[in-house]
């Protein structure tokens, strides 16, 4: 069975651990290949790697970006990343999932316009449900 490649972008280390461990504990071994980016810049670097491809990208909207030589927290930094992902041909079929707190749900319309496919409120997903959700999405993707 083809391995599903997932990228998760989140500055919160604990969130990255939860995400990683959810797939570790609730899926078959080697079913998923997970990579993580801990900030905006690292995410860009990973996305630009020539041979890199992802089936699904999860990202938080709230990230630090450099503005006038300072790092600032930008609630819409994730939107910029979505636009960049969609500008890269190799990711045209990649599912983009906004995985953010429900307090940012008001940004969903903008995210969707830029090319995001789903918004998952991070407060509502217990680990096993998250894995099941990905399984379901990937089955639908395979069926298309």
């Amino acid at each position, binding site marked *: 069975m083809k391995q599903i490649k997932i990228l998760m972008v989140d500055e919160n280390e604990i969130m990255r*651990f*939860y995400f990683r*461990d959810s797939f570790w*504990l609730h899926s078959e*071994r080697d079913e998923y290949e997970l990579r993580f980016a801990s900030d905006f810049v690292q995410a860009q670097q990973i996305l630009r790697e020539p041979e890199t491809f992802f089936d699904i990208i999860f990202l938080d909207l709230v990230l630090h970006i450099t503005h006038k030589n300072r790092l600032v927290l930008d609630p819409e930094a994730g939107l910029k990343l979505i636009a960049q992902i969609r500008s890269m041909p190799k990711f045209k079929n990649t599912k983009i999932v906004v995985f953010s707190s429900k307090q940012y749900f008001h940004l969903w319309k903008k995210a969707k316009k830029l090319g995001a496919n789903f918004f998952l409120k991070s*407060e509502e997903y*217990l680990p096993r449900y998250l894995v099941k959700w990905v399984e379901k999405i990937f089955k639908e993707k395979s069926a298309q």
Partner: protein
Amino acid sequence: MNTIIELKHVNFWYDRGKPTEMQALHDINLQIGQGEYVAFFGPSGSGKTTLLYLLSGTEMSQEGEVMVNGKDISKLSKREMAIYRQIGVGMVFQQFNLIPNLTILENVGLPMAFLGVGEDKRIKEAKLLLERLNLSALAKRFPYELSGGQQQRVGIARALANNAPIIVADEPIGNLDSTNANNVLDFLKELCEKDGKTVVMVTHEAWSLRDAKKIFYLKDGVVEKVETNHAKPATQILAEQLYKQTAPKRAQESKERAVASTLANVLFRGFSAEENMRFSDFLTQRLTGQVDQVQFLELLYKPFREGGGGLWKKRALETSRYVEGIIQEHMDVEGICLELEKNPTAPLLHEIGSLMEWLLDRNKIRLDQLQESRFRQVTTEVLRNAIKLEAFKEALYLPKSKLGVGLSHRTTERIYEKFKLALGNFELEPLSPEKA
């Protein structure tokens, strides 16, 4: 079957490097399959709880590998281990460990709160879990308002809150009466069979191993042997049923055997499965009259390696007296019930008085006048078959202000178990209107 847990050459010490150093586990190697129900069985100090702590991330392994779904958790950082404990393992404790100032609903939702799950979602999920365990009506109560059995069910619901794939249960029935203990065991089995959870139970009670598919016998920190319980094929179950139905004499003996088995579980909690079976045999021999009181005592006292029970003399004497009490009371109860059949209004003051003395074990349980009067009343009602034994138990536990006897939970359980054994399989026929 995929292996979800694997221990490789695991050694563990408490107070390592200190004068009080003690090696609790010696070169442990074992595998547990995904969705298996296994038990770690052994006496106190055998290392079974230490093993459980290593699997659950409560203790960090010092030597060897503790693999969970292909990853060595002994290499995790403290932070990573904290997350593993939250979402990898659900724990059920012997002492329940509920938070006293949180409601039942809040207790069940608490693990989800640590995960950052929103309040609405937490409440919704917690309510579903309570419903599954028939605890919905108790959602707003506090732990002190619940019985032991109810508290343990809350403990199980809480262990399921974060949907962990592995459930570990540390002596989950240790503080429960037999009815509630059986309910808990049934539920653990259901978690395995229906939910596909991997269940790991620690126990020192042989009878609780009934559903475990694999049993790891531990002694002095070593896995002595591993047994696999195979489900009986349908043909064997059918053959056993036909055997019971067509052999009434053997059915009678099997009644004594059933009583002996129950008695063995009551008297010999904490003994190994092999020891328990042996005591059960001795009890069957005594209950069927194959051995007399003296011979029974000798069997209990004889060294284990010579085929005896290996008990200390004092314990053997106490056990023998208890069993003789059961036999005598059973005969007395039979006598009482036969008398009541002939003469339903017979006062039987003396007979019921001595039964009460025995149930209360006068040296240990003292009642005031009101309690004594109510106790006599409910005992008589059981014998006259006006109430069932379960109602008798309830009446003992009910507070004096609510017209009960007002005994503690523990005393109630003791008296109930004793009375149940004395009644044995003697079936009280319902009173017909003419007799009443």
